[in-house]
């Protein structure tokens, strides 16, 4: 049997090749993980289904909330009443959990139209409209409360209902999924 040598031999070219081969295998193996992970991402068809959608606002009565989908996500289009707009504007912004003025959440000159994503920012349930302490939305799952600007006012939701990208193409038409390019 060969004796085990106790002294450390000088690095040889063979050691270098050994380490280089191992390193190449490790990098190669790690690289191979990427196609598998990437395949889990939203695919091209799902992204293509996210083309902008046009919404005609004329049939939406004052006080009404309409639900529609863009990119598979629920969106609320709310035609706010004068009291609802006033309630949203008469808020001390600095007292909010996610401070944002109502004017920053609607388009200038279109304060009666509030367009927000329709899933609670806590865990994604659909909040119920015109309910809760501020008559905005109330989430039945874990009790988050939103005001008439879609801002979080209570419960576990960490942020306001986000605003999807949209633009007014006329006074009664919006396109969701497209920001103004002016």
């Amino acid at each position, binding site marked *: 049997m060969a004796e085990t040598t106790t002294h450390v031999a000088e690095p040889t070219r063979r050691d270098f090749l050994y380490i280089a081969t191992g390193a190449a295998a490790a990098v190669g193996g790690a690289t191979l993980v990427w196609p598998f*992970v990437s395949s*889990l*991402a*939203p*695919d091209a068809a*799902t992204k293509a289904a*996210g083309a902008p959608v046009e919404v005609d606002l004329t049939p939406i009565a004052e006080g009404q909330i309409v*639900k529609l*989908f863009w*990119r*598979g*996500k*629920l969106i609320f289009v709310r035609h706010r009443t004068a009291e609802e707009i006033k309630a949203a504007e008469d808020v001390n912004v600095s007292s909010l959990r996610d401070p944002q003025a109502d004017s920053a959440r609607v388009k200038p000159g279109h304060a009666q139209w509030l367009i927000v994503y*329709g*899933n609670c920012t*806590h*865990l*994604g*349930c*659909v909040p119920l409209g015109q309910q809760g302490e501020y008559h905005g939305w109330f*989430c*039945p*799952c*874990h*009790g988050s409360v939103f005001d008439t600007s879609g801002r979080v006012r209570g419960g*576990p*939701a*960490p942020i306001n209902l986000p605003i999807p990208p949209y633009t007014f193409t006329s006074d009664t038409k919006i396109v969701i999924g497209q920001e103004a390019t002016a």
Partner: protein
Amino acid sequence: MSQHSTTYVPKSAFGRWFESRLPIAGLVHSSFIAFPVPRNLTYFWTFGAILAFMLVSQIVTGVFLAMYYTPNAAMAFQSVEHIMRDVNYGWLLRYLHANGASMFFVAVYIHIFRNFYYGSYKAPREVLYILGVIIFLLMMATAFMGYVLPWGQMSFWGATVITNLFSAIPVVGDTIVSYLWGGYSVGNPTLNRFFSLHYLLPFMIVGVVALHIWALHVPGQNNPTGIPIKSGKDAVPFTPYATIKDIFAVVVFMLFFAYWVFYMPNYLGHADNYIPANPSVTPSHIVPEWYFLPFYAILRAIPDKLGGVIAMGAAIVIWCFMPWLDTSKVRSTAYRPLYKQFFWVFVAVCVVLGWLGSRPAEGWYVIASQICTVYYFAHFLVVLPVLGFVERPLPLPNSILESVMAAKGGAGIPAGANAEPQSKG
């Protein structure tokens, strides 16, 4: 325990030829026939066999359901109704599978609390125990994804709420969630991949169960006294003693299982799940299946999204540290008078948390959930470490045999059961 090992000697020439090439018969013999089992095991030790039975039952019923189920968002709900109405015994397969999940969790919770009570998690069984925690986590993932497949309202919103837990992760949370969904919301890609994983994970459970049993057979089973087998008289051979007892327990458990399947098959489900998934309406009161309720209550007790998710995860991960958090030298709670009381308080807290998880998150329910959550963690972080130092345990018996003799008043042990296992046929 080397005095117990009986070597397997094949009787036929073919047996000897085969055994020298693949010694599987010898492995079965040493693991499930001659394997020494403490003679004082109670029926609480039959839940491993019951769980093995439930795993096989779930896989068999699941494979047959998959022959008719369609993992497509437009067809899944109808394909389940098709199984219920048109497929021969489809209703039986589905009710066995759906109630089987609950029965699986009934058995695993008894198994887990038996382990907590008798200190089975302590040295030298830490690895065995942590493998068990891993099996439990895999079971939770499998059960959750299975519940999504019928694509009813509870399926859809359960999937939405649970996948959204990952959105609490700072910075990358939203990207992770869209990778889980394969889209911008729970949809067809989500259903498809959940079906794929729901079929895969049970076989991963089988693999970890094999390791769990392997790790069990190194130190052998714990027992109600918590003291190890010291001589052959402390043990009986696995076959016939444990084999027959396990089979009997499995049959009794099957009666319990059958009662649910045949008399109240929808009791543990939710009526809302017979409404097809609707992404624009959330059911007014969404709750997870009963076996997730204590963890759900912990999630909701924390008034912060990320904090709630971390607390819920920690509630299970903390189990992995029990072998080191428990400082007591005595395994079995039967000899720990003080800990025995804390153990039952802990059981009660877990049950109350489960009940609170089924209540709406409002008013005093939230406060009660917070108190119970604090106690839950205090049990692991305060009670377990401190009691080991302050508690005076009762005197332990010298051997398993002595404890059995004491219980029987020193008489009445059948002569056969008193013999050394290897001396029996």
